[in-house]
């Protein structure tokens, strides 16, 4: 290979730098897969163990799993069946960009290395190559247009456009548009024509040159500043003949360049200025540099998914979704964080998406959850909105639907399971756990202090339910204890003493005394198994279970903005002290 490949030492150097950056970046990012810990930190295996587990996983290919693997490799990835399942228009968009770009890369960018080796007659300005280059370019451009349209049409929490997406779209557009523009600029350029004339044309008789220029001007749109001829059919016919003889072996007719030729026509009025500015050269530089920029930044932009996604798809083809290995799951999850393109498919199909719509917490949506997983694994410090993150994380029915639909084959369900463990470890477990942080009386005190944080919600909620403030509902209670006597939870509770003193019938009593706040944090309310025995058996027809449900709902609203770390600090301190005293002994 020579500098001829790019025609410039500068660009050639750039290519090497970009390649180097790409390779180093890729190695760096892939290596991180073995160091990033998602899920609980305690007891996380060493990178070496993770690596060995991955090798062991790879070894499992020597079984019937190989067929699934091959299917993913030969069908799933090239035909992008994962995306097809999520919708045709998205698939069409993605397949256009994917195959358009890949084919441009192989046939056009790497022509010296690939196309020429396979097709000895390759010449970039000959058909079918000229036609195909236009076609592939159009494919990419059409894909990019569809992408932009989709992102505007469906914008919202299911399909958010962030900087990474904009950059990717912009870079692709720049590469393809400058490519076309450069081809057009060459077509209309007199100097390029002249250079070619000088190099390849030996006019046999006078007037041949004029005829050829007339023909090129007509056919290719080349713009000649000085014209010494008048165009007429005879001249054109002669020009065509000359072209046939001298040029056609390297230049197919312009109509196959079905984008560049019309574009050339558009650019023709300003041909002179473009010529003066050396537009074809500038466009060439932009085109190549944009490509190299893309290459160099590949590991650090959305483009990295062209590496990580096929890996994720292949890995998912040979692994069990439910029983993920303990060690191998870690690097896999880390890898999958790089494979997510935020396409939003998971969020659109999520079983609890309607819950998001009512609660308005973005962290309920899987796409956002994965972002949270990334944030939690990257940083030591606790994010500010950790309570919202935790709320979202625990609103999940473990239905595996997100895993099922993810076009990149990410085992999202496993990500959620791990992140819930991590959140519990960090002191932000599910509501049923953190409710135990304080006793009922402490919650009651705290909630009064934070009245402003829930007063408004309470009023809004009043129109949906209001059993606990309506004395008609619980006043008929005659304290006969039937509810308590039929309650399986009261019968089965084993926690000691005061924690379980409140029984359903005492809750009714608390409501009558107006001590709703005390009922809210009680173990009875949060340990209710919702079997409705109390409600069914109440001789007074009191809706006991529904009252308990409402207390839980209200408690959740009242408690959730209260800083729970307060208590954790206390407990920690206590533990610390008692340990010190023990040590002293």
């Amino acid at each position, binding site marked *: 290979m020579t500098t001829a490949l790019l025609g410039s030492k500068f660009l050639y150097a750039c290519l090497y730098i970009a390649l180097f950056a790409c390779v180093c970046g890729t190695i760096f990012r892939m290596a991180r897969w073995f160091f990033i810990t998602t899920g609980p930190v305690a007891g996380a295996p060493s990178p070496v163990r993770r690596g060995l587990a991955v090798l062991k996983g790879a070894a499992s290919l020597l079984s019937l799993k190989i067929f699934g693997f091959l299917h993913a490799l030969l069908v799933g990835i090239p035909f992008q069946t994962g995306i097809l399942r999520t919708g045709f228009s998205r698939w069409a968009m993605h397949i256009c960009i994917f195959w358009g770009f890949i084919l441009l890369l192989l046939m056009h960018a790497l022509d010296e290395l690939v196309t020429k080796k396979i097709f000895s007659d390759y010449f970039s300005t000959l058909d079918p190559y000229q036609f195909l280059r236009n076609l592939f370019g159009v494919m990419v451009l059409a894909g990019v247009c569809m992408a932009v349209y989709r992102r505007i049409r469906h914008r919202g929490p299911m399909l958010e456009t962030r900087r990474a997406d904009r950059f990717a779209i912009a870079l692709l557009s720049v590469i393809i548009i400058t490519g076309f523009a450069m081809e057009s600029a060459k077509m209309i350029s007199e100097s390029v024509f002249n250079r070619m004339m000088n190099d390849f044309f030996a006019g046999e008789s006078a007037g041949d040159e004029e005829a050829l220029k007339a023909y090129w001007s007509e056919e290719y749109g080349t713009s000649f500043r000085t014209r010494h001829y008048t165009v007429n059919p005879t001249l054109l016919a002669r020009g065509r003949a000359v072209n046939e003889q001298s040029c056609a072996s390297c230049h197919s007719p312009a109509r196959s360049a079905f984008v560049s030729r019309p574009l050339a026509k558009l650019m023709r009025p300003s041909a002179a200025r473009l010529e003066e500015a050396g537009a074809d050269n500038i466009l060439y530089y932009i085109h190549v540099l944009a490509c190299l920029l893309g290459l160099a930044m590949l590991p650090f932009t959305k483009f990295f998914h062209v590496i990580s996604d096929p890996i994720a798809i292949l890995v998912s083809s040979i692994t069990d*979704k*439910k029983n993920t290995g303990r060690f191998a799951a870690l690097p896999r999850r880390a890898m999958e964080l790089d494979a997510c393109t935020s396409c939003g498919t998971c969020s659109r*199909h*999520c*079983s*609890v*998406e*309607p*819950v998001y*719509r*009512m*609660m308005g917490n973005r962290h309920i949506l899987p796409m956002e959850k994965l972002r949270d997983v990334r944030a939690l694994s990257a940083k030591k410090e606790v994010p500010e909105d950790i309570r919202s993150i935790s709320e979202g994380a625990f*609103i999940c*029915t*473990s*239905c*595996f*639907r997100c895993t*099922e639909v993810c076009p990149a084959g990410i085992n999202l369900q496993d990500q959620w399971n791990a992140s819930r463990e991590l959140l519990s470890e960090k002191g932000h477990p*599910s*509501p*049923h756990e953190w409710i135990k942080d304080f006793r009922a009386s402490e919650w009651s005190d705290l909630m009064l202090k934070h009245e402003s944080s829930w007063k408004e919600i309470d009023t809004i*909620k009043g*129109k*949906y*339910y209001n059993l606990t403030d309506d004395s008609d509902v619980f006043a008929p209670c005659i304290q006969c204890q039937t509810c308590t006597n039929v309650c*399986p*939870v009261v019968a*089965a*509770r*084993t*926690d000691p003493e005061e924690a379980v003193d409140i029984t359903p019938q005492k809750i009714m009593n608390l409501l009558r005394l107006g001590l709703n706040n005390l009922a809210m944090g009680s173990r009875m309310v*949060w*340990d209710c*198994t*919702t*079997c*409705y*025995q109390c*409600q*069914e058996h109440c001789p007074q027809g009191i*809706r006991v*279970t529904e009252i308990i*449900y*409402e207390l*839980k*709902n209200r408690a*959740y609203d009242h408690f959730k903005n209260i800083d729970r770390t307060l208590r954790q600090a206390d407990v920690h301190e206590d533990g610390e002290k008692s340990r010190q005293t023990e040590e002293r002994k």
Partner: protein
Amino acid sequence: MKAMKFAFFKGCKIPYYLEQYETSTRAVLKPFGVRLVDLEFNCCGYPNRDIHFESFVFSAARNLAIAEKKRLDILTPCKCCYGTLKYAQHFLKENEHLRGDINKELAREGLAWRGKIAVKHILTVLCDDIGLPAIYASIRSPLGNLSIAPHYGCHALRPSDIVHFDDPLAPSIFEDLISATGAKPVEWPRRLDCCGNPLWVKNRGISLSLMRAKITDAAESGADCLCTACTYCQIQFDAIQNAEMSEDSRITPMPSVLYTQLLGLSMGLPERVLGMKRNHIQCDKMPRA
């Protein structure tokens, strides 16, 4: 027989935790000409009822509206889904504010809850829509010699004025259906009690203690096997019992089958659809499919 068509609401857990429930349900319903239509439903809303009422109602209402749009009644094999959808219907009917707000949100995707469709549990469909005579007629190999303890499940049975499943204090639908298979329904004191699953992640101790009492009771009452017709109850008695109680030497494992598996067995359906081998605890007295 009139062809019956239902929207099949399988709930969140079946596809990955209890596949055999789906395959056996489809298999036993097919000979009776019941068609199950798959729609993309979301979570029934049950898991979120603890903390956020409106999102529970909205989740359920959305499912109801999706089925209503197709003018299909819902059939669900899960008693928690059944109960939840029924509760939501009740609240929507009862509370005008709620209905208005929920419908406003549904309207954004062209849906509406009007309360025009029915929600049915598989047992009701078998017993009432298909009818016991037809069930009896479909039995190829009666399961004599087998004592089965029916586990009713809470959310289908109570509160009876909302769910309308059976007599809440003296239900009989499950015994009737078990008798049809030729097996003997066992009378046991705790048949209407909770399986414990709702507390599985919330308070494991109580959850296990509830299950343990039921298992012991069923064994003392002479049952060879429990029978469930609910996704969560079956997961509790099968997978969770297997995982949690195998080390408890005081307890002999009590197998649990799904009613659709039991019926399928007596109808002579193959293991491929019944998935008996997918159950974690096998019942030795059960004939092979």
